[in-house]
């Protein structure tokens, strides 16, 4: 009689991520307990609906993890809004106070990978990270000269207003992310995988969009990354 893989997997190992390991191990234990108690062969048990795990079983497993005080990383805004007690709040841009300066003595508040070479652009940094901000810009229009600071490499959050941005600085993804693809199609200058330090809402910034397009297949090269400089 073959067994479900609980402890007798010759080459198995723990999952890399703690949440995955917790859930999968808990599910394996529960399946093994039900199987052992059934007195059936595996082939009989696996097709027996009465032995299937239920929604309540999965809810219980999640509760076991939450009971340890664990909070989940947030990805989609809606997840934190609906269940703030389960998720960590999204962190904003930090300020190390140790930023470097460019040749003209201006504070360098970030760098990023350029999607395509364009002209350097001066504009106003505006954080566009929530449905409420997008809705406001959809109704009232995107302020002229906005360089959108976006913590989302996807193409859906900013879908109805993307065309209105003068430039984009994205704190994630790669130049092949959906947002990178879309900004290239629209011809909107864009930095992806940006790392920001000390940038705040309303800052006047100069973005080095004239830098050559990043090589998606190359290792990271800091010298090849475009600078984001705070003007005022």
């Amino acid at each position, binding site marked *: 009689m073959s067994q479900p893989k609980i402890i007798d997997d010759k080459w198995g190992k723990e999952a890399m991520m703690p949440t995955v390991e917790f859930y999968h191990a808990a599910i394996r234990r529960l399946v093994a307990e039900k199987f052992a108690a059934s007195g059936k062969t595996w082939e009989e048990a696996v097709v027996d609906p009465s032995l299937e795990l239920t929604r309540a079983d999965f809810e219980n497993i999640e509760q076991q993890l939450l009971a340890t005080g664990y909070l989940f990383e947030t990805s989609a805004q*809606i997840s934190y809004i609906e269940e703030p007690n389960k998720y960590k709040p999204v962190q904003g841009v930090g300020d190390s106070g140790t930023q470097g300066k460019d040749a003209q003595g201006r504070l360098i508040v970030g760098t990023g990978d350029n999607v395509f070479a364009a002209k350097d652009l001066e504009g106003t940094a505006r954080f566009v990270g929530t449905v409420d901000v997008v809705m406001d810009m959809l109704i009232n229009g995107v302020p002229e000269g906005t360089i959108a600071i976006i913590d989302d490499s996807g193409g859906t959050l900013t879908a*109805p207003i993307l065309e209105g941005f003068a430039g984009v600085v994205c704190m994630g993804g790669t130049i092949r992310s959906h947002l990178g693809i879309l900004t290239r199609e629209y011809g909107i200058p864009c930095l992806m995988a940006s790392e920001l330090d000390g940038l705040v809402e309303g800052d006047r910034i100069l973005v080095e969009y004239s830098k050559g397009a990043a090589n998606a297949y190359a290792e990271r090269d800091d010298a090849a990354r475009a600078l984001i400089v705070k003007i005022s």
Partner: protein
Amino acid sequence: MASNYTYAELLADNAWIRKSSDIFYWQCTTRTVQESKLFPVNPYIALSYYNCWYRYPELLRKIDAAMPAEEIGDRAREVSTGVNTIMLGIIQQFYLGGRQFLMDMGMINATDGIDDMKFVLDFTRRVNLGYHRQNSYILNSDDNNKGQIHPERTLQVFEADALGCKPGDKLHNAVVRFLATASQYAFLKNCECRLGINNSGPYKVGNNEMLVRDFIDLAEGDYPWLDGVTADIEYNNLTLPVIMKDTHFNIVDDWGSFEATPSYDHDNMIAVGLYTSDYLSNGYLPVHMNNASDLADYLDHSRETMATATSELWKRISGWSRDQMIDAGALVYYAVAKDLAHFAGVYEQNDWMQLEERTQRLKPIMNDEYGNHAIAELVGYITLSSQQNNPYNMNKWSDQPNDMWSAIPYSVLEGNEWTASVGPIRSGSTSLPPKTQKYTTTQGKLTQDECNAAARKFVSGPVAAGSKIYDDSWIKYNYASPEANNLYKATQENSRLLKGKGAGLSRADIDAIRIAAGEAPLGG
């Protein structure tokens, strides 16, 4: 009792599993991690895999009984629909993803669902072989990432009828604007995934290259969330053959995505066409291709319609609950096989737009962090326990002792330690509002029953003229025959410049026909 597998069949299926495993790893690691602050993307991807595991066996059998998989692949080459490179390349991937997750959780063994596995693997191989018949491969990656889908007769029409353009002119500007808006809209209506966009090619046009760009499921149709807000979108599928100079498309991959050297630049676009098509169309139907100005006006109109639809759809989606976002995204993924049912005339909304109870039960663990990490381990890092092999093993790409999808143990060839099936599909549900509007087709807005009835009796002109048996290797020696001429004329039926010209045309003839019509040849 042993399974229904012969040794040779199981060898072939395990090779298909391994090929799928290797190419999915390459695609997932060389594209990008999907992310969205609007949609919980990875939780819905993970959930969709379970629905594929539980539902595909019965639904693909239902399709195959009505129209064999390889015949659907044949028919799909004549048009642009959801039966395309990206969709066909991932049906078995999502199914195997569900299996791998369940194996890793100890809920099934590698020896479970063996009859289902045998059928799904065979079906997905046959439909891909049919679709990719033109280059005799099964996936674009086999062809060094080229998507040579169309035969000469289709490409001749695309080339001959393409309308010239250059940077700054009315048509060029309209095309560039349209492509941006259509791409944006496609990502939104597909809940952040790229399944609404597909490309085939490159096709050689003298010294230049043609890329055939498809936008799929644009109008009121299978996705219920498009009802109402997309009522003004006239065509469900649009295809733009784009001819480029000074550009080599070095990659058109298994997800229908392209890369070019030098980088794609709209300024290199020299000609373009616009077509619609679907499972009910007589091949590709030109859309406003009488002249460049007419096409530019229509593209601008279509762009404005899609921009409005984007805004309205975004407002609708931004008001959804997390559960609704999860359901919609999971259904987009799970339903990559839905257009097969349309071709076969057996499409049912409840088959393809519901998550069944065995899937729904897993929702409590689908928080953002688990979804992100589980998908990353499954298709990126290959670090789940069930994916680890003996320590001497080296993965094709990573050199690590692992594989994304587990093979079927050969023990199923003897003895009775295996199970046959996940059983019949069970009742499903969705938190989304039900579909209320008709389906947009090239034969008008139809009900579900009308769609299926029309599909069951429809045979397109090229199919009726023998597209299945008269392939390019036969045409090469028989182009002067009545059969060849009938087939080419059927494909040329709606062509602006080639109608009735038949099978004997060379590329030089295409140039001459364009020059005679006052249009520049496109071969460079």
